[in-house]
């Protein structure tokens, strides 16, 4: 047995020399080189968050333009074509370029800190998922800015999206861009799964995982299995358009409904993928401000997983109006109703946590707790459409638009803004301004409800969605004006949030390691955390490592100041999947240019496909292949191969 193959890690206490050794090993190189080669999950996470918020702002501006158009009847600000471009791009932006990446950003930043590790399982893959996200976002927006944005709605029904009805490059940008973006989501999901399974602190058994980890882990498993459905659908659409295949057109045996199946097999699990991690944020953040552990940890964790399992069996409720057989619809209607149960469990757990706790009203608490209300409204309006006759009445009306905004804004944006108030001090070392925070919250909350609560009525009165204007005298005028006013109030609230962030970055009150007196591991390290996160690998003995004294946890206590030093290389600990026993020492990759180069190669490849230029495709493929070979080349420092033989 050679020394290099096995080792007993040294245990010890944190010290200044130890930390400086670690810093040298872990710190990203400075300057432009470090910018393109970093694999630090914290830098990648913040990039994700900033990029996603920029897309949120873009999508928001798009919606405001539409709301001006719809403020009164017979609006003339936009042509029908411009309106199509805008509502489709708005949907694409919010759903694909904001709602999911923002959660990936938080998870990227927080996971290793929550798990007591020094980085994600595959740091280079993490960098790749960001670069691909950025490149595909730019690709999709290049389409929009050149007048070739998506224009058939975000779910892009055929045959409208086929070339015969939509001859421009719009759908080709959208189709290829979505396949491109799918790569990012997929590799990100794979990384989260392996990270959660293999790089937890010793002692952090599955029953001690923060709920946010459960949420993102569940979402990642779903993404891994359903992203191929939508990538395939968009690829086949592109084939139909460019190579004359017959998948979705209605000639030569093509099946337009196949598009809807593939899209919604992806689409409905995806809805849960963009809310479960945000629900996890509430499950972890809300109890901190209630000064007690979450009520019903196990039921909440189990219902997170149950929601996803059931979530695979509800896609047809998007297709009730397409004339499917009654047996099929009954089954999917049933599952769509049953799925309310796990969601309700989470709601009651949050309510009980507030009820039994001693709430401290902070801005973060307001965002987290208001989400419960918005979730119930959005949940009930969704549950209504699980009933087939109700769905037939409401489908394609503004009622559905109101529902999906309660879901996406209520269960994604509100928790996310709350999460920024909660974790911003960890990321930057400074607290956000609480006074401005109250203005921020109440403006957003009032604006949002003003905009979208009346919209349910607009839908019940029969106003169809996706129309660029409407005639007067149908009872929709006042409601639409109110919605427009509400949307501007909501936008003002978001603006206050941005102002708060920019202001607090410079003059915010210094936070210290644990400003909220919170229980989980990320609060045990300094704010912002050092490049290596934890000087020693912590050992976890309960769900609330930093609250053990006050909770009177029996038996052994968690340890964050003594543990494995792992300072002889860029190393962290691998643990067993179920019980998190120490299992192996992981050699972590240093800064690498491979992810960036692979993303560039892939981007060139997709541009080549769009323009159907064989040469460009070949160049892109060659760059990508070389980058991949360089990436996968077995390296001695990662113990992937033996020393070179003579």
């Amino acid at each position, binding site marked *: 047995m050679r020394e290099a193959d096995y*080792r007993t890690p040294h245990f010890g206490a944190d010290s200044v020399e130890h930390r400086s050794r670690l810093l040298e090993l872990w710190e990203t190189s400075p300057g432009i080189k470090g910018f393109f080669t970093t694999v630090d999950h914290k830098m990648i996470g913040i990039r994700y968050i900033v990029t996603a918020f920029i897309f949120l702002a873009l999508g928001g501006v798009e919606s405001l333009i539409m709301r001006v158009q719809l403020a009164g009847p017979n609006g003339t600000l936009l042509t029908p074509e411009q309106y199509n471009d805008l509502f489709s791009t708005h949907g694409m932006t919010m759903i694909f370029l904001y709602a999911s990446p923002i959660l990936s950003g938080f998870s990227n930043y927080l996971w290793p800190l929550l798990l007591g590790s020094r980085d994600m399982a595959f740091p280079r893959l993490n960098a790749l998922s960001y670069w691909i996200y950025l490149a595909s976002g730019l690709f999709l927006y290049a389409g929009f800015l050149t007048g070739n944005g998506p224009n058939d709605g975000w779910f892009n029904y055929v045959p409208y999206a086929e070339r015969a009805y939509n001859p421009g490059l719009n759908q080709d940008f959208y189709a290829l861009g979505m396949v491109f973006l799918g790569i990012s989501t997929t590799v990100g999901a794979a990384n989260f*799964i392996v990270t959660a399974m293999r790089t937890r602190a010793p002692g952090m058994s599955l029953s001690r995982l923060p709920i946010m980890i459960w949420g993102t882990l569940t979402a990642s498993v779903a993404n891994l299995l359903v992203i191929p459905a939508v990538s395939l659908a968009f690829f086949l659409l592109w084939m139909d358009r460019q190579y004359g295949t017959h*998948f979705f057109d209605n000639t030569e045996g*093509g099946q337009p409904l196949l598009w809807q199946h593939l899209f919604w097999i992806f689409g409905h699990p995806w809805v849960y993928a963009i809310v479960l991690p945000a629900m996890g944020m509430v499950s972890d953040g809300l109890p901190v401000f209630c000064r007690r552990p979450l009520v019903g940890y196990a039921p909440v964790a189990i219902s997170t997983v149950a929601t996803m399992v059931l979530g695979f069996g509800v896609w047809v409720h998007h297709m009730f109006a397409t004339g499917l057989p009654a047996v099929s619809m009954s089954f999917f209607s049933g599952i769509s109703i049953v799925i309310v149960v796990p969601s309700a469990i989470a709601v009651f757990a949050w309510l009980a946590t507030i009820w039994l706790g001693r709430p401290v009203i902070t801005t973060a608490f307001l965002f987290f707790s208001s989400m419960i209300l918005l979730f119930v409204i959005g949940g009930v309006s969704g549950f209504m459409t699980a009933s087939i006759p109700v769905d037939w009445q409401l489908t394609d009306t503004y009622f559905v638009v109101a529902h999906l905004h309660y879901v996406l804004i209520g269960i994604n944006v509100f928790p996310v803004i709350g999460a920024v108030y909660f974790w911003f001090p960890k990321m930057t070392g400074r607290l956000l301004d609480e006074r401005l925070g109250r203005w921020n919250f109440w403006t957003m909350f009032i604006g949002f409800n003003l905009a979208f609560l009346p919209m349910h009525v607009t839908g019940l009165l029969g106003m169809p969605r996706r129309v660029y204007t409407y005639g007067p005298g149908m009872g929709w005028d006042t409601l639409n004006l109110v919605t427009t006013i509400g949307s501007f109030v909501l936008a003002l609230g978001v603006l206050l949030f941005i102002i708060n962030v920019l202001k607090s970055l410079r003059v915010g009150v210094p936070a210290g390691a644990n400003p909220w007196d919170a229980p989980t591991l990320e609060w045990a390290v300094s704010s912002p955390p050092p490049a290596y996160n934890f000087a020693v690998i912590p050992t976890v003995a309960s769900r609330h490592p930093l609250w053990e004294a006050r909770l009177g946890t029996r038996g052994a206590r968690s*340890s964050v100041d003594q543990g494995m030093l792992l300072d002889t290389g860029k190393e962290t600990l691998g643990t067993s999947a179920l019980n998190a026993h120490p299992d192996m*020492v992981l050699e972590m990759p240093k800064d690498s240019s491979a992810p960036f180069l692979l993303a560039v190669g892939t981007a060139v490849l997709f541009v080549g496909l769009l323009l159907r230029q064989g040469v460009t495709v070949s160049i892109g493929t060659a760059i990508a292949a070389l980058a991949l070979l360089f990436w996968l080349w077995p390296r001695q420092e990662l113990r992937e191969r033996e020393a070179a033989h003579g």
Partner: protein
Amino acid sequence: MADATRSAPLQLPVGPIGRHGLGSWGVGTLIATEAALFGYLLFSYFYTAAVNGKGWVLEPTPPLKLALPNTIILLLSSVFAWMGEHGVLQRKRALALTGFAIALVFGAIFFAIQILEWQAKPYQLGTSSYSSLYFVTTGFHMAHVAIGLLILVALFGWTLLDYFSPRRNLSVSAGVLYWHFVDVVWLFVFATYYLSPYLGFGT
């Protein structure tokens, strides 16, 4: 903390030893997502067949003259890849190189015969939804074969450079596992497109 718990000192492997490492989990997730992709391709076949009803399959009795031997060649290639992996594990470099080389050749033969098979088809990509599905599904598989062949080339080269040992060989087990996956997926594609019509599905 006096009573702080602390994981007991243990001797731990440093980096991946054999299959034991994060790379195996990484390949596992890759295979899961790729398997899902082929699942959706086959779902599209069965869905479109079921909706179109009788007569949709353009060849009610798909000729097996090339496809069946080719399937066997691909499976044999998996066996030789496995042999190559065992050469590495038993420190028999000649065996390893031979295994990878034969796997590579057999894989390439499969690829070539598959192109002949394509050319022999009486229909083209755009003939009908059946032909579109046939060419795109087998095309997806061909793309995976091509990637698998590149992986086998890399494994051959790295073995030639004597990179691996019975302890350090995760690249080998991961690459060979991927190749097995490419072969197993073919069995599903083959059963769907070449065998199910004989059972009367869609014909």
